[in-house]
């Protein structure tokens, strides 16, 4: 995909706060219709990346294009891009209805009324409450309601699930899915809630040590490159010796006839073929699907020169 076709294209983005270089050359592309999750440890630079992308922070070098525009000109998209931040940016002295009416005034082509978005997010009964009287979760709902007054093409959400109860999280997840499937709205979400991201994202990027360590579709992430296998065979020692000779295979553990492997770029069928060719009888071979959490942990905990990190 050309960078010009992308909803968001970030190339070699570098950001320094005094002596600390937080972003050391970020490359990130969000394609049309994608729900792209950005995960990373605390302080890894997720929020800084989002703020640079949205023009809230300057950066030292790199190129950012959002719907083909530079961050400083993002306002010229007139509501096609929406940013929802960790802190809901709302006038605390106004009521929910007034905040939404104010937001509608600024929306060039509103497609929903304040009453409609209140209903969509279960805010109807808080309509005449002042923002300062609402819980953090409901404030977050109001800031999401902001986005729904228009027809945004791209929504950037920083920690969208913070402060939401279980029902609220389900509502937001459903809302993201609906908007994505019905109107093709693209999303860039950052969150520590990996399970939520895994349930909704089409793409995942892992931000670690100031760089994007991995960008992959969720589908590939689950079954690809980096796979864990459990093998039960009659000659476990011989099997271990055979497989260890390949640098793409790492023996995680061995117990009697059982081997646990971690492989990069070799699938279960190939392992089975090698063992059988060596005269080792395989009675069980199980590919363990790795969750986002496991992939994230492996990347975060692996040393910088590990083949696992290089593969990603």
């Amino acid at each position, binding site marked *: 995909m050309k960078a010009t076709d992308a909803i968001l294209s970030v190339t070699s983005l570098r950001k320094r706060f005094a002596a600390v270089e937080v972003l050391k050359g970020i490359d990130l592309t969000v394609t049309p219709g994608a729900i792209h999750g950005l995960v990373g440890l605390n302080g890894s630079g997720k929020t800084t990346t989002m703020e640079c992308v*949205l023009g809230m922070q300057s950066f030292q070098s790199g190129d950012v294009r959002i719907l083909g525009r530079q961050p400083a000109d993002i306002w010229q998209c007139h509501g096609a891009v929406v940013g929802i*931040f960790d*802190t809901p*940016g*709302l006038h605390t*002295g*106004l009521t929910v209805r*007034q905040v939404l009416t104010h937001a509608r005034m600024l929306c060039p082509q509103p497609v929903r009324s304040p009453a409609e978005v209140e209903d969509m997010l279960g805010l109807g009964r808080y309509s005449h409450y002042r923002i300062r009287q609402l819980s953090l979760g409901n404030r977050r709902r109001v800031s999401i309601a902001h986005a729904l007054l228009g027809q945004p093409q791209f929504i950037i959400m920083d920690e969208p699930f913070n402060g939401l109860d279980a029902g609220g999280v389900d509502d937001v997840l459903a809302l993201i899915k609906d908007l994505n499937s019905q109107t093709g709205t693209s999303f860039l979400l950052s969150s520590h809630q990996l399970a939520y991201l895994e349930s909704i994202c089409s793409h995942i990027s892992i931000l670690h040590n100031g760089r994007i360590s991995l960008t992959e579709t969720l589908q590939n992430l689950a079954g690809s490159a980096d796979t864990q296998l459990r093998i039960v065979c009659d000659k476990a020692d011989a099997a271990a010796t055979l497989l260890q000779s390949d640098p793409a295979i790492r023996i995680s553990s061995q117990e009697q006839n059982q081997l646990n492997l971690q492989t990069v770029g070799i699938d279960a069928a190939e392992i089975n073929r090698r063992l059988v060719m060596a005269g080792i009888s395989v009675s069980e071979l199980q590919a363990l699907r790795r969750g986002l959490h496991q992939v994230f942990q492996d990347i975060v905990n692996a040393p910088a020169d590990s083949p696992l990190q290089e593969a990603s």
Partner: protein
Amino acid sequence: MISSFWVALRAEIYVGLRSHASRLVVILPALIACAQLVLTSMLTASREASETMFGGMGAGQIEGADAWGTLVDAYATGLTLIGLLLAGYAAWSLANDKDSGVLRHLLIRHASRRTMLMVKLVHAHLLGIASIAVLLVSCTLCAWLIWDFGPVVEDGYELIGTSEILTELRLGLLLAIIPLPAAITMGLLVSVLAGNSTQALVAALGITLALDILKGIIGAASDYIYASYLVSLLDSSYLRDVSRLVRGFSDVMINPTTLQMNQWVPWPQAIFLLLLAWYAINRKPV
């Protein structure tokens, strides 16, 4: 850009009409000025009753001086507060929108940073116009209910006529209002540079008071500072001279050069402060 300015201004006014801070800026100066009028009238009535009782009334009494003098003092009190509140509001408003994150929504969806700066500038001026209008109307009405206004007369001799008083009063008010845009732009500049709204508010009020003190220290050089022409706690504005003039003081020395400076000095300073804010706003994180 122009259409985004008008839409953002309309939205700003929508919020302003529902904000306690805006209401405070518009109503508080008028309220305090009217309270001063009422209090002064009560004290004057009490003094006159006392003098009548003990036979102190007599020759040398200046008729009409109390009415005009108290009215001008009330205007001066209101304008002092308006100057402080507008500088503080201009500093607080943008910084508070930054703190709360409201500014981010506006910048992402609708307007550039510089457009928002101009929106805040115009909004603060609209508030200033509203607060001055409320002050003038309420004080005039309040004073008209309490006193009879006419020429200032001493022992049957007219010291100053009504039309002359009104001319001087109009000039005094006009000259007191001219430096307000510079005070507002100073507040905006502080708002752009400050880290948060509390810092901005404290800095803007601190700078206003510091300039007030400074003008008394630097002598003739103070003619080149806009703050010298603001009605303030250490007042050196023309309205102070008007207050003495309408009380029948004959020793009021009016320097035409100072009046000229009052008209022209604040404008380039307002523009300079605005240009600094214009330059700085694109370089600060939001």
